[in-house]
């Protein structure tokens, strides 16, 4: 008898099941996709994939799994809340709690199982598609299997734990509520009961503080502050949403005519805002994050390419150590002819290696484009970082420097730009005059010296051809320790940027899709109440056009305005980020 009842109940829920399984499958699929990449040991190994590219997967993976921790219980609880009344009636009409418990457990486990299996299958397909097609479109070559045991087992383990805990929580909840609570409509409207003008103004202040902070205070010296401003702004938004009923009180006091003339609309908005404030707030958080992260990833990809260009003024630069073998000037000309390249600049820069690089003034002025006029006991510092590269770092704040075997040198000038390719040099390059340079070598016989070779051809592609020609005979190495090339850095940066855009787009599309699903769930659960109220308005003599207007205004205010607010928040944060980089 009970089995027949449960079978019929499941049959009547088919439509809900479809939606439930669809959104959970999409989430699980994307979890497997990101987990599959993140837990693939080869992908995260520097031997196979440049860390600049692979590191881009960390944030989206964390965000997606954090979202899964929230979303999976949300869908299960929403689903069960919609059916709770039926459960209550079944229990009231004689179905034992044990049977009901079994049914709920089975139903939720079945749905979770379907989502996991379908999500796993589609996730593996997406992962394969990603490694076989997408990354090749970007131009990255991966020579390892797309799927490993770890990349399937670890996400499965994480998801299973989330599902098991969710199902347990649902069963515990069901066991705690009474039949009466299940049956009665407990969703009574509690409008504006805890609204406070102080909290509303606090929220407004927090928002203003964040906007001012982002535009006028925030700078590159502490980029973490942007997150603080973002969080403060969201707290402000939450306070404003939670206490928005104060605005209704104000409206009633100061614009009563407006309130009375728009009673159906205002009443409806008031109720929907009150009932949906959590989901409205969540949507604002999610959409603003999506906007921020998407623009951030596009911006970062451009920044990476720009930085690669700025950080590498020479097409090819390598260090000729004392004990190594390197092509001579003559060889280089021969290689250039062979590669069809015309060398524009070819210079050997004698350097003292001492934690930093020390270069003489004449060599720097002649070959590196500086214009230094340094006295004895002085130095000019070139730090690796450009203050406008979008990354946090400290300013160079020392007045004096101690270099090997010398007295303290006073710092005459600090330049935040790249003198020689960043990949090759340590953080600081110090230029001293000729006497000081010779003095350092003479004073300390053990000091290490080397020659830095910098080469620029007429075009980057010519330099690339020359590099490959040299690499046929010499082990130039590609690890960036002894060789730095502008074209490889730019290529890596370009690939890394595109990869970041690709993964963030996948993640953002998922978040937006699931946000829409959540709103759909909410609209579905509110629909009956809303329709009842529209029908009532009609019965009271309010015409169809006015009801239609109410419906549209309500949708606009409850869902479109928050989306607009979210886009604005995302945009403000992005502007803040871009501002510090130019």
């Amino acid at each position, binding site marked *: 008898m009970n089995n027949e009842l449960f079978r019929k109940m499941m049959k009547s829920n088919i439509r809900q099941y479809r939606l439930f399984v669809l959104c959970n499958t999409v989430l699980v699929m994307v979890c497997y996709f990101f987990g599959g990449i993140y837990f693939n040991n080869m992908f995260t190994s520097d031997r196979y994939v440049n860390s600049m590219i692979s590191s881009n997967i960390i944030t989206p993976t964390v965000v997606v799994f954090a979202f899964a921790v929230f979303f999976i219980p949300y869908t299960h609880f929403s689903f069960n809340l919609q059916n709770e009344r039926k459960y209550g009636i079944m229990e009231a009409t004689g179905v034992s709690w044990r049977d009901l418990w079994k049914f709920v457990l089975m139903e939720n486990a079945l749905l979770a199982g379907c989502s996991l299996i379908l999500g796993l299958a589609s996730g593996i397909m997406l992962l394969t598609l990603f490694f076989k097609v997408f990354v090749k479109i970007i131009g990255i070559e991966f020579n390892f299997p797309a799927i490993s045991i770890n990349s399937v087992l670890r996400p499965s383990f994480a998801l299973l734990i989330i599902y098991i805990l969710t199902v347990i929580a649902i069963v515990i909840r069901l066991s705690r509520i009474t039949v009466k609570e299940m049956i009665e409509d407990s969703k009574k409207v509690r409008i504006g009961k805890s609204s406070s003008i102080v909290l509303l103004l606090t929220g407004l202040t927090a928002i203003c503080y964040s906007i001012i902070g982002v535009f006028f205070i925030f700078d590159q010296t502490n980029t973490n502050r942007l997150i603080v401003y973002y969080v403060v702004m969201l707290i402000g938004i939450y306070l404003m949403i939670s206490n928005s009923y104060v605005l209704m009180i104000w409206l009633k006091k100061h614009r009563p*005519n407006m309130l*009375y003339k728009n009673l159906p609309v205002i*009443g409806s908005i008031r109720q929907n805002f009150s009932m949906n404030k959590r989901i409205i707030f969540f949507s604002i958080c999610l959409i603003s994050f999506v906007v921020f992260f998407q623009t951030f990833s596009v911006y970062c990809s451009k920044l990476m390419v720009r930085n690669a260009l700025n950080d590498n003024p020479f097409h090819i630069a390598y260090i000729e150590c004392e004990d190594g073998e390197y092509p001579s000037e003559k060889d280089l000309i021969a290689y250039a002819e062979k590669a069809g390249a015309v060398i524009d600049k070819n210079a050997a820069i004698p350097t003292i290696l001492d934690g930093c690089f020390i270069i003489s003034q004449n060599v720097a002025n002649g070959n590196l484009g500086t214009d230094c006029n340094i006295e004895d006991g002085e130095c000019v510092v070139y730090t690796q970082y450009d203050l406008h590269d979008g990354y946090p770092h400290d300013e160079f704040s020392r007045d004096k420097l101690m270099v090997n075997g010398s007295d303290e040198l006073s710092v005459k000038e600090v330049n935040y730009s790249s003198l020689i390719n960043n990949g090759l040099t340590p953080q600081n390059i110090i230029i001293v005059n000729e006497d000081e340079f010779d003095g350092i070598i003479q004073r300390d016989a053990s000091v290490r010296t080397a020659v830095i070779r910098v080469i620029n051809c007429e075009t980057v592609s010519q330099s690339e051809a020359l590099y490959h020609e040299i690499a046929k005979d010499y082990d130039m190495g590609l690890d960036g320790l002894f060789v730095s090339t502008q074209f490889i850095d730019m290529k890596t940066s370009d690939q890394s940027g595109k990869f970041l855009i690709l993964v963030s787009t996948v993640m953002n599309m998922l978040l937006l899709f699931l946000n829409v699903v959540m709103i759909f769930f909410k609209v579905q659960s509110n629909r009956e109440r809303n329709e009842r109220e529209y029908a009532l308005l009609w019965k009271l003599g309010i015409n169809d056009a006015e009801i239609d207007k109410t419906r549209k205004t309500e949708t606009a205010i409850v869902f479109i305005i928050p989306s607009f607010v979210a886009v604005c928040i995302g945009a403000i944060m992005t502007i803040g980020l871009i501002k510090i980089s130019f």
Partner: protein
Amino acid sequence: MADFRLNNVGIVYQNYNLIDCLTLRENILLPLHNKDIDSSELDYVSDKIAAKLGIRDILDRYPHEVSGGEQQRAAICRAVINEPKVILADEPTGNLDSKSTTAVMECFEKLNKEDGITILMVTHDLYTASYCDKVMLFKDGIITGSLDRDGMSRKEFYRHILAGLELGEIYE
């Protein structure tokens, strides 16, 4: 049709049909929302009607915060706010206890006597029917009889209807 309902007829339902998201005052003023009346005038009108039906003190509460009888009285206020000629009441006391029923029927009586509003009411309850001036009895959609109060007190009219039903005169 909607305009006709809005301007000429007041309707009272068995389940009150108040809008949850509006206060009692706002519910009462709903039929007047598109009329060009100043808010102070609206407040005055709603206060006046609510005072007549004994719910003036709870006008700023939401429906779920008041009793069924008070909700029904608010629904009656809403039905009469636009001064209709007729109020249609569908089992207005069907969900109420005897105390609330008396309160609601006294409200109807007052509106009828003082404001001259005709009230057309459907009920299964003899006690409620005994407040009326004329009772028409239906069985399966067919009128089976009618009774006039003709100056009888409410108690006398109640006994009269009861006697008629017991004797089977009306339903035969």
